[in-house]
């Protein structure tokens, strides 16, 4: 039994009042003379049993009366007998059907895709809905599609396996919000999913009272699965990490470039295998890693992209500081940079360089001169007053995230530069939400000197990779290879005639672990009753199988009150 207002149950303590009054509130009665006491004693002796029975009866009736009123105030929900549920048409219901057609639903279990089983259950839910019900269909994209029963059934029939992952916790949370906004008598959310453990997002769905969440139980046996989780290219090799069901057997990994197998390895879920790539000439390259086929084919293949570029030719002035010079020496030794005039680094603009990386001059009196030079170059950023210390936030160079900055100049925008979305004016890193590293008009402007008195970056291991990215990638306006969720593929970003970035799409690696969440965890996180298909069919639109019992309780309380009145009146 559940209660809509469980706090009201605290009032049950009041049920003890009659007994406590009986025990502790015995006042000293007034005393009076009464000569015919013998008659009284005789009457009392004859009535003792009746009076004792009366007192006990009244005590029980009054206690039960208070308890019933408190219980009614708590608005209990009691199970409704199944025959009664089926006998009557269900009440108007706000229904959200969540069909988890994510990548994992493409797994083949017992000879047929999981999605077929889920779709059949979803079809059952929608088919059982009535014309007065309000219903939505939520797929792996998280979009709630409102519509009539027939329209949603048509959508359902055309639904296939999506490469996207569905966060069930968020989906149920949104669905609960959706049904709660509808002023209908009943509210239900049907979760038709393989209930992967990894599909449960952080936190809880926060199912409110009055909303029933029913989840279809996963298949009894789920196959072990392996998938390509991620691919990282560095130093002429690709690191292939394998994901999937923990404990699954190792599988062969094959890497192909331009349709030609370039390497092969063996890896189990949780492990990473590194495969050397053949040396390629400058340019963007696309490869593919593939696993042997298993029950879930969609995660057995993943593509990757990388760029082979000639080292940047860099000149550093003395104003750049010793740390920059040391980092460039390391990069030169590793053949990542060469001496030249493509990129100039210093505390003033280098007129001969194609791209200038400018750090603030050590002498504050030179700031104005620098700003004028920036303006003359057409840059829409300038150095302003001193800014507050804080950590660096940079999406393009992840390694430098969180490194503290002690001193900095504010990098102020001139005009609408800060709102520019163009490729030539970009905020590459911020401190306290304010620009710290920006690129505009062939100039990269840094808010702090690259010195340990200004920032801890030069002393951090990320400094050399930062300088590498600065001169080889950021100075050229290139974006890093980004990843998006989707079917395996690659898209390139171009600026003018140059390719400046790549976007690799691949399924979420969490989809590869098909291990279902325990029913208790589903109940805890989603607030759902996990039912097999027949039970789900019986439970849907059953008003929770529960009905509010306040009315009957109040009627019972009235009957008890009448009984109490009768006993008190007629048993004197």
């Amino acid at each position, binding site marked *: 039994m559940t209660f809509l207002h469980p706090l009201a149950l605290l009032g049950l303590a009041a049920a003890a009042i009659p007994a406590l009054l009986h025990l502790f509130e015995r006042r000293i009665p007034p005393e*009076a003379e*009464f000569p015919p*006491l*013998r008659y009284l004693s005789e*009457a009392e002796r004859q*009535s003792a049993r009746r009076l004792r029975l*009366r007192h006990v009866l009244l005590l029980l009736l009054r206690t039960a009366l208070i308890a019933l009123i408190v219980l009614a105030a708590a608005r209990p929900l009691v199970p409704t007998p199944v025959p009664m549920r089926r006998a009557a048409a269900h009440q108007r219901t706000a229904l959200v059907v969540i069909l988890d057609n994510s990548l994992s639903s493409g797994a083949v279990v017992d000879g047929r895709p999981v999605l077929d089983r889920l779709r059949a259950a979803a079809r059952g839910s929608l088919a059982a809905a009535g014309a007065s019900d309000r219903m939505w269909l939520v797929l792996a994209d998280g979009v709630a599609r409102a519509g009539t029963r027939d329209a949603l059934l048509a959508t359902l029939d055309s639904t296939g396996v999506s490469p996207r992952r569905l966060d069930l916790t968020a989906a149920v949370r949104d669905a609960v919000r959706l049904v709660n906004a509808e002023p209908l008598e009943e509210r239900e959310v049907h979760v038709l999913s393989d209930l992967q453990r990894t599909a449960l997002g952080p936190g809880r769905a926060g199912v409110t009272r009055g909303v029933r969440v029913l989840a279809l139980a996963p298949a009894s046996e789920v196959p072990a699965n392996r998938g390509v989780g991620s691919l990282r290219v560095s130093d002429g090799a690709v690191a292939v990490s394998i994901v999937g069901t923990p404990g699954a057997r190792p599988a062969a990994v094959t890497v192909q470039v331009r349709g030609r197998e370039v390497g092969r390895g063996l890896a189990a879920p949780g492990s990473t295998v590194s495969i050397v790539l053949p040396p390629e000439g400058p340019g963007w390259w696309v490869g593919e890693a593939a696993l042997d086929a298993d029950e879930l084919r969609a995660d057995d293949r993943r593509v990757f992209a990388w760029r082979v570029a000639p080292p940047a030719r860099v000149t550093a002035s003395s104003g750049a500081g010793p740390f920059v010079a040391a980092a460039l020496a390391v990069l030169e030794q590793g053949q990542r940079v060469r001496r030249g005039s493509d990129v100039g680094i210093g505390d003033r603009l280098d007129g001969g360089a194609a791209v200038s990386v400018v750090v603030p001059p050590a002498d504050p009196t030179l700031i104005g001169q620098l700003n004028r030079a920036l303006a003359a170059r057409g840059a829409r950023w300038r150095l302003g007053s001193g800014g507050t210390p804080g950590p660096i936030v940079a999406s393009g160079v992840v390694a430098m995230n969180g490194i503290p900055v002690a001193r900095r100049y504010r990098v102020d925008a001139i005009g609408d530069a800060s709102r520019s979305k163009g490729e030539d004016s970009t905020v590459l890193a911020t401190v306290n939400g304010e620009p710290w590293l920006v690129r505009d008009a062939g100039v990269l402007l840094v808010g702090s000197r690259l010195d340990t008195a200004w920032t801890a970056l030069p002393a951090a291991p990320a400094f050399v990779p930062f300088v590498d990215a600065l001169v080889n990638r950021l100075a050229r306006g290139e974006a890093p290879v980004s990843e998006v969720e989707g079917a395996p593929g690659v898209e390139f970003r171009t600026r003018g005639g140059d390719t400046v970035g790549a976007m690799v799409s691949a399924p979420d690696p969490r989809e590869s672990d098909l291990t279902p969440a325990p029913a208790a965890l589903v109940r805890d996180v989603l607030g759902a009753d996990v039912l097999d298909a027949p039970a789900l069919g019986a439970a849907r639109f059953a008003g929770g199988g529960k009905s509010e019992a306040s009315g009957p309780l109040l009627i019972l309380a009235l009957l008890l009150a009448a009984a109490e009145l009768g006993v008190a009146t007629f048993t004197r």
Partner: protein
Amino acid sequence: MADTTRIDLLDPADVARLGGIEIVAAGVVEGFLAGIHRSPFRGFSVEFTEHRAYQPGDELRYLDWRILARADRLFVKQFEEETNLRAMILVDASRSMAWRGAPARLTKRAYADRLAAALALILLRQRDATGLITFDEAVREVVPPRVRAGQWARLVRGLERTPDGGGTAAEAALGQLTSLLVRRGLVVLVSDLLFDRELALTALRYLRHRGHHVIVLHLMDPAEAELSAAPEVRLRDPESAVSVVVRPRELARAYRDTVRREIAAWRITCRRHGIAYHHILTDLPFGMALRLLT
């Protein structure tokens, strides 16, 4: 109209405010006798008045043999007594008699005193020798029956001298009374009868057996007949330390039934032994109480 001005028909408490026992009793008797022209008390004289059913203790010489022969039933003849009736009035002065259920009413003792005085005056006016005995757990006052002048005043003084008793064991006093009543006559017991019925009846049966004509006037305050008080009250017997906490509303019906059973038991038992029994509430006008005796 004339009846409403008769003192004997007024509320006893109102009448009592007229004065002491003597004045009240005289007033009551004047009013009472205004409507009665013959002696209400019957003795064993020569002037036949009526028959009544034979009761154990009746003298066989007054049996009507002709009715016995004709109808095979026992009847005794009753005669108008003229002067030789000896009446003894027994007034219970125990502690329980000094109680009243409401300030506006007389205590049972006050009611008994006035009723006894009025009764004595009536008897004395008929030239019947009348005496008085007051008692609680012992005999307190004894005024032998006489018809001489000033007898009534002595009786009244006897009543007035008797304090409200503290005793409870009236049964013992009743035992003593039997030895004081040697010559047969009329015995009127005025009491609330709050003592053991069997023991009291033993004494009364003995008197009856000795040939006395016994009349029992059972006084009861109206508050004793119906239980009504605070929601919860501790009631204490004034004659003992016994007390009990009761909720009168719960016990009212059972108590009323008990009182009715007790009165019925007294009435039945007295009738069985040839004892006249009258139940009198203390708000009953004296004239009506006296009328019960006629």
